[in-house]
């Protein structure tokens, strides 16, 4: 159901590609649905080849969906006028390298309909924002990958859009550049903008995103607020035991549902946090030694890995 503050709406999108000239089709998006709300930073997360960039291209009107419905700010994505309100940074952006940094931003500002009397000051402002003022009059062919990424971010913002779509925005940036971009994304939220961010770098997502959707093999596996993810599920603990008799290991599995993994003479097992003490007592009584006991934090990474493993299992089963 659409709510009034849904900025991006994706409903049951299917995308098939023809790999060659034949009639055979390959399905890369299997009816995905999600929504992005006003003034949130939305992380669209998935491994390489999961369908993140394809989804973003569908939203940008660069690829036509086979079926389903997409809208941005209430507009169908094949319309053009509303794009005055959106900015887009593609993955590994490429620009006309015969232009200077200032010229390329002026070019995009013109295309975006920025008024003539505001253009020069807006371009200067953006060059300063992404730290390219010094290189503004150098041709883009002399720019490094990180500098081109900054140009990409600047062109996405040059017309002061309401919604910004970023495909791997930290790609090609050094640690300082990554922090700058993270800060910039957070600043966009304080300015009331909505940010959609494609990435596979989970630490970035945990640091900046309000909500996240995880996509794997063309299917949405999870969607929700970051906080919900991190507190979801029962807390667990990882125990490492040495000298555990085989029959006790079986008993631990049966009584506590422990997942066991052997590491030489040591055995690592994960149990519910409430079962950690009884499990350790059982092991000690059987003559085993407790090497370590560490509470296991449910992180975005573990959810991500679960999603990826599920998709791989499904693929193997089919």
């Amino acid at each position: 159901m659409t709510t009034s503050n849904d900025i991006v709406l994706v409903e049951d999108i299917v995308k098939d590609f023809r790999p060659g000239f034949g009639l055979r089709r390959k399905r890369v998006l299997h009816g995905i649905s999600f929504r992005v709300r006003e003034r949130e930073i939305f992380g669209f997360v998935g491994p390489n080849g999961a369908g993140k960039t394809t989804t973003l291209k569908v939203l940008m009107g660069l690829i036509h969906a086979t079926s389903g419905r997409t809208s941005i700010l209430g507009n169908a994505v094949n319309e053009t006028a509303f794009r005055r309100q959106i900015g887009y940074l593609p993955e590994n952006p490429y620009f006309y390298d015969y232009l200077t940094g200032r010229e390329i931003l002026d070019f995009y500002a013109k295309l975006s309909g920025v008024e003539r009397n505001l253009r020069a000051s807006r371009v200067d402002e953006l060059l300063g924002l992404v730290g390219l003022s010094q290189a503004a009059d150098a041709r883009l062919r002399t720019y490094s990958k990180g500098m081109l990424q900054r140009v990409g971010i600047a062109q996405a913002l040059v017309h002061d859009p309401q919604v910004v779509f970023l495909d791997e925005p930290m790609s090609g940036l050094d640690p300082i550049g990554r922090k700058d971009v993270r800060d910039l994304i957070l600043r966009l939220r304080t300015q009331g903008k909505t940010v959609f961010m494609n990435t596979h770098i989970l630490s970035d997502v945990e640091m900046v995103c309000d909500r996240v959707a995880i996509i794997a093999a063309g299917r949405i596996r999870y969607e929700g607020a970051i906080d919900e993810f991190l507190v979801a599920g029962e807390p667990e603990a990882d125990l490492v035991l040495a000298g555990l008799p085989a029959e006790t290991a079986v008993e631990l599995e049966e009584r506590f549902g422990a997942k066991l993994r052997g590491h030489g003479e040591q055995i690592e097992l994960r149990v519910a946090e409430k079962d950690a003490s009884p499990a350790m007592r059982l092991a000690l009584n059987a003559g085993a030694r407790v090497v370590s006991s560490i509470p296991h934090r449910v992180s975005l990474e573990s959810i991500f890995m679960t999603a990826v493993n599920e998709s791989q299992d499904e693929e193997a089963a089919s």
Partner: protein
Amino acid sequence: MILRIWTLASNTVREAIRSKLLYTLLGFAIALILLAIALSQLSYIDNDRILQNFGFASIRLFSVAIAIFVGVNLIHKEVDRRTVYTILSKPLSRSEFLLGKYFGLLITIWLQLGIMVAFFVGTSVVTGASLGLSDAAVIALLCVELALVVAIATLFSAFTTPMLASFFSVGIWIVGNLTRDLKLMGAKASDTSIEWVTTWLHRVLPDMASFDLTIEAAHGLPISASDLAIPMVYGVGYIVILLMISMAIFERRDFR
């Protein structure tokens, strides 16, 4: 809409001005015109006619070559280098993008033609060769022909590789120059199916020979207003159809 198309067109011209390839081709064309002067001086009969024939032929051949070989890359390069991604995310349609690129290349080609013609006129004045309105008519129709050639190259560039687009564009230009002769040959053939094929080739493919008034100009033959107007209307009509097909194809493309 016009402002956006103009922004793209002027940027395409700027790209050409900053490209070394076009200057090289332009250099070759001017060298060939110089060769025409040298040849005309060697001949003991009708120096003016040799200069005009060879000069116009050089200008036409090089202009068409530049139009095709730059034109076939026009859209493909944008997609291949993914510059199209950021541009199409802005508030402009794919058709506006294609028209902007088309007019940008056309202005570039006409600018180059202008330089070659200026050089040709200069050498004609220096060598004392006569120039008249018929020469201006030749250049006017060459402008239309080039606009048509750029439209053909743009059409193929919208959906195929530069290699195939070059092959198709050159092929159409060559066959387009021969369709009148083919039609005449077909009319004389005993097999009616041959006549049918050559007639339809003449109808469907662009009649490039209709834009060539070089012989009339070189021999001082009269050129009427209709000799100029009819090919112009025909050319513009053909260009509009080609651009509409190009836009329809480009609108449906997926940029993967």
